[in-house]
């Protein structure tokens, strides 16, 4: 079924009887060419590109709960490609390009909204680092713009220019950055994958891998064994738990990241703003809520909830940079589990087990990467070689000393 304005009008006039289920609820088959574990954004995107771009016919996505229930269902919805390092920037730029054509590709309005992202600068050293980053972006073909204080004042008159402890000195903008309606990303990919023949099997938990002679033959699930020629894992947040079933230890820790939304407000913020002297970033959803976040709670956790100190820390950052939000109310806080990798960058790679592939370690940058991650993982699964934008995302980079460390924090995941 094709969605369109015309279709919406037609259905409205005929009692909405014609809307069909957005995806099927298929019975699983005994064997697939490719099984994707994880019905989140990355897994569903992988399935979409496998079916649509790489022509794979027998693909299944196995989801423990309901699709879109992981981090794609709880994040701060930001997209951007403002990365510094060569290992990252081309990948995130491809991602941004895929976002730009997503709705037409999927025939689903995920509300990709390129209202821009602004990183505020508060010190000379920070300015030097952001100039370097802006240059890296432009040299990679992405857009970047350096703004001085006067330009910031003009565009964001409501920021704290009067009594800031760390005065704003400028900013690095990426005008093509923005936000996307996060749930719709999962639903749109799921609908498209389903339409292209992918079996999306919900409430199907993978309980183990069947590995014989160093080869993965399929997965044990809560619904029984399902065979597969190739198995791709895309369960960021729970990678440690899942890969332990294949006896793998990963360069990853699971951490909780909280995010927040305020009550609905009439439009206040044009785009995304990040505070450079505290842990705070914010945008405003189309519904009017301020969607904001900050730092990790900082300790290993699979609990999907956080604690007060970080809530306060984030709100302190918000009040420092934007004191007009003091009387807006925090409506809801939630916690997602992040695959925090040892250098802050992801992994899309084969494992040492034949037929078993891994996609994870997204830290808290996973949402913006969804299309490229899906595309690159699909490429890897279909062609058995890394996509050209993801060649650096290998397991062995740590042993070889080729880390991709944007923040320069080293092997301490909670600092990335």
């Amino acid at each position: 079924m094709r969605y369109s304005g015309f279709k919406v009008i037609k259905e409205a006039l005929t009692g909405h009887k014609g809307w069909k289920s957005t995806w099927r609820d298929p019975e699983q088959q005994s064997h697939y060419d490719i099984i994707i574990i994880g019905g989140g954004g990355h897994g569903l995107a992988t399935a979409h590109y496998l079916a649509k771009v790489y022509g794979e016919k027998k693909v299944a996505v196995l989801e423990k709960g309901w699709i879109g229930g992981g981090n794609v269902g709880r994040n701060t919805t930001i997209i951007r490609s403002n990365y510094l390092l060569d290992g990252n920037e081309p990948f995130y730029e491809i991602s941004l390009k895929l976002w730009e054509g997503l709705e037409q590709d999927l025939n689903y309005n995920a509300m990709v909204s390129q209202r821009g992202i602004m990183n505020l600068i508060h010190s000379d050293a920070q300015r030097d680092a952001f100039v370097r980053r802006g240059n890296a972006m432009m040299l990679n073909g992405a857009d970047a713009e350096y703004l001085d204080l006067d330009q910031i004042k003009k565009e964001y008159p409501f920021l704290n220019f009067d009594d800031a402890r760390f005065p704003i000195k400028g900013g690095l903008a990426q005008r093509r950055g923005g936000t996307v309606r996060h749930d719709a990303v999962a639903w749109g990919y799921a609908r498209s994958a389903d339409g292209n023949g992918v079996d999306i099997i919900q409430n199907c938990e993978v309980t183990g891998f069947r590995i014989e002679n160093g080869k993965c033959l399929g997965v044990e699930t809560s619904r029984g064994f399902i065979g597969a020629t190739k198995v791709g894992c895309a369960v960021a947040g729970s990678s440690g738990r899942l890969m332990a079933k294949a006896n793998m230890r990963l360069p990853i820790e699971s951490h909780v990241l909280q995010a927040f939304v305020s009550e609905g407000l009439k439009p206040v913020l044009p785009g995304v703003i990040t505070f450079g002297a505290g842990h705070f970033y914010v945008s405003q959803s189309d519904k009017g809520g301020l969607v904001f976040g900050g730092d990790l709670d900082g300790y290993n956790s699979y609990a999907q909830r956080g604690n007060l100190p970080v809530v306060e820390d984030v709100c302190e950052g918000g009040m420092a940079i934007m004191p007009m939000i003091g009387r807006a109310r925090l409506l809801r806080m939630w916690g997602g589990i992040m695959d925090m990798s040892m250098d802050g960058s992801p992994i899309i790679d084969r494992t040492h087990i034949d037929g078993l592939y891994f996609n994870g370690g997204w830290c808290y940058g996973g949402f913006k990467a969804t299309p490229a991650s899906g595309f690159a993982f699909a490429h890897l699964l279909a062609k058995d070689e890394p996509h050209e934008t993801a060649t650096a995302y290998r397991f062995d980079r740590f042993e070889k000393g080729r880390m991709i460390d944007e923040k320069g924090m080293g092997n301490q995941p909670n600092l990335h």
Partner: protein
Amino acid sequence: MNQINRLKGGQIDRTQTLNFTFDGKTYQGHSGDTLASALLANGVRLMGRSFKYHRPRGPLTAGSEEPNAMVELRTGARQEPNTRATTAELFEGLSAQSQNRWPSLKFDAMAINDRFSNFLTAGFYYKTFMWPAAFWEKIYEPIIRKAAGLGSLSMQADPDAYDKGFRHCDLLIIGAGPSGLMAALTAGRAGAEVILADEDFAMGGRLNSETFAIDDASADVWVQASIAELAALPNVRLMPRTTVIGAFDHGIYGALERVSDHLAEPAPGKPRQILWRIYAAKTILAAGATERPIAFENNDRPGIMLASAIRSYANRWAATPAQRVAIFTNNDDGHRTAADLHAAGVKIAAVVDTRTDAPRSHGYEVLQGAQVIDSKGRLGLTFAGVKLADGSMRTLECGALGVSGGWNPNVHMTCHQRGRPTWDDSLAAFVPGGALPPGMTVAGAASGNLSTHGALQTGAQAAKAALGLKGRLPKLPSAEDAPVSQTPFWYVEGCSRAWLDQQNDVTVKDVKLSHQEGFRSVEHLKRYTTLGMATDQGKTSNMGGLAIMAELAGKSIPEVGTTIFRPPYTPTAIGAMAGRIKGMDFHPTRLTPSHYWAKERGAVFVEVGNWLRAQWFPIAGETHWRQSVDREVAATRASVGVCDCTTLGKIDVQGTDAAQFLNKIYCNGFAKLAVGKVRYGLMLREDGIAMDDGTAARLEDDHFVVTTTTANAAKVYQHMEFVRQCLFPDMDVQLISTTEAWAQYAVAGPNSRALLQKIVDPEFDLSNEGFPFMACANINVSGGLRARLFRISFSGEMAFEIAVPARYGDALMRKLMTEGEEFNVVPYGTEALGVMRIEKGHAAGNELNGTTSALNLGMGRMVSKAKDSIGSKLSEREGLNETDALNLVGIKPLDAGDKVTAGGHLMNADGPVDAKHDQGYVTSAAFSPSLGSMIGLGFVKNGSDRVGEKMRLVSPVTDLNVDVEIVSAHFVDPEGGRQRA
């Protein structure tokens, strides 16, 4: 009397009449009123508009669960959007405006959406607005954004202050209704430290809204006596107007106290609100229950309210939404409202009870087995359409309709640690489940004990259990113990535009469509329809949606499950979560010992971490910072300059194994450093990347003073403690930070020795032989004051760092300036410091950026192979030792007038300019007065072998493209003769 719907009695203070305005019109209410009760008393039912269809709305509830009656409270910078009229206490001069309507509440142009509601069903926006792609941001989205949102921010800084505080207790009791009060009495009398918190301004909970008797008197008597007894106990703290917002790990609760919200503005120096962090050994949740509505066609008109809310308005606030009221109920509780209103003189149009065996009344008509199936009234209810048991229709004229579908225990806080509630068939409701937050028990209506007696009894029991008190229960006051039976009745058969979520405009039809389209899990339902995502977090709407979903899926409600309950319990001002930590108090400010002197000198300050440091010291006639900085550099290199470098971290390292310890934390060797000598040290992380650098001075055989960079002081100290306690626990070494104990000044330049000789007591020999480069000593200055002297140089000049106890730092600086007059001494700031270190080629924070190794920094050979140190092993990895690894170099423009920009990238002179051909980048840049051009430091691939090469420096983001030459990083005195002079 213009309060046409004011009744007799109630808990309002009629001696205090308060004037207030709503949408510019003036009304009167009384002390004790909420904005909603006062408006209802004045005959105003219409208070807001819904989110999507802009339907007219009045209050649904009388409490914090309110979805509809939201206003912008106050004006100017204190304007506060989305404030619930049902909880806003009335004060003299209160001003409220309706929101999300244009041009007025009564005539809202956006209400046209309601006409098109058939097109605007759940999730319609996912299916359209896609063509052409560029139209989304430009056309569709701006329209949607403008229409969306609720209230407005003032766009001005919040003028009020907020505090944070910390309280500890043996027992936290959340809710001061009958169970909470009884629990507090039980625990308080036993001597426990008790905190009793309630979101309402009047403690008593539901008892304030009922006409029950306790111990043969009005419940109010017992409530007031209980509060008085508790207030007199020193171990009990009563916290009214305090909402416990969340149950966090290990008995930590967040609680918001509204200190001044009932006043026009906070008193001077007082906060608006306080966010308390309560550390509770045990907790009793006595949060009561929330009545649930029944969905029927057009059930959202102003005047249609929860039956218990109408009862609250009548009994507590002596207000009725109308003079003629009908009730629609499926349980006995709805009849209480009818009885109380009837007794207060309000006409009861009828009680419509879905049950065929509903109790009769002598005072008014009860329609057994009947259902309300529709309503009328554009801006407020006028008629309710009723389908009688025999299938015939009847129209009831009424200005208000009280709806009761039974009660839901307020289980929210029991689920804040992701526990799930369990289903109680006898109540047809969720009750607290097994996995409560540790330390929490639940009492009263929140635990499903809906009678007053049950509340008192479970309150007392919970307190005893929580504190482990022995013995029998205290004698409970006698109270009603009516049996409670609730059978499910969620919606009227056949309804379609029957509202579940009144704020977000989610109807029964939307839930059905969601199911039809495959959004069948409870989380999908919520996200697709937005059910329960409004500011009331679905407190009155979620159950109805779940019930319908369960029915469509052919499952039971517990099988469908609930969405996750998340903090905060009610929305909380962001300002309160930040407290005093904002503005100039966002971070503490650290002042250097010479700060007050520097301020007198007119220094310009800069934030360096939490420190404020003098950036430069302008003198008369200087109009541009470069003039000051160039002068400071030139004067220092020509004669002598002084800079406050107290901010560098100083860690005192003592013990018999101190040298061995430093051998571990620095990649270069320290074991053989002689007493009285200083050595530069490079500290690596275990992954082989540079962490920090500094010096270590050996004052005695078993005593070193280590310096760190300003930025990394805390991190380095933590790392050193890790190495000491976790890796080498038997080393005899003790660490303590002494950063702030000493005022430390760099005295640099060819005349630095001459100047210091006037300060340092004469018995100390400062000659090059007596105190050579990299010497250190404990000395005395100025006639006997203990001090430390280090001969180290960051500028490349002959230089010393001198340290005295911080309290004497101000005086020492003044003395250096006075004694230095004959040498034309200058103070210099961080800018000149930076210029001189770039000229000298010293790496600093911009170079030690967390990705650079010793090799990159040109110190690869410093990593000792003769010993083990942190980071040495992993620095051997191939990726960190490639032939084209980045090396630190100097960068000079070919044309001295050209700019060198930090953050610029270096490209081969003739090659393409793109990321693939990137050769490196500039880390630091400055104008060098010594060279007369800008210069830079940077990293270039294989840079050590490329000195002399011409390259191209590009910075597209700042529009720069110049030709440069790669040179040695040591621009000034590369042989180091000056610092050794």
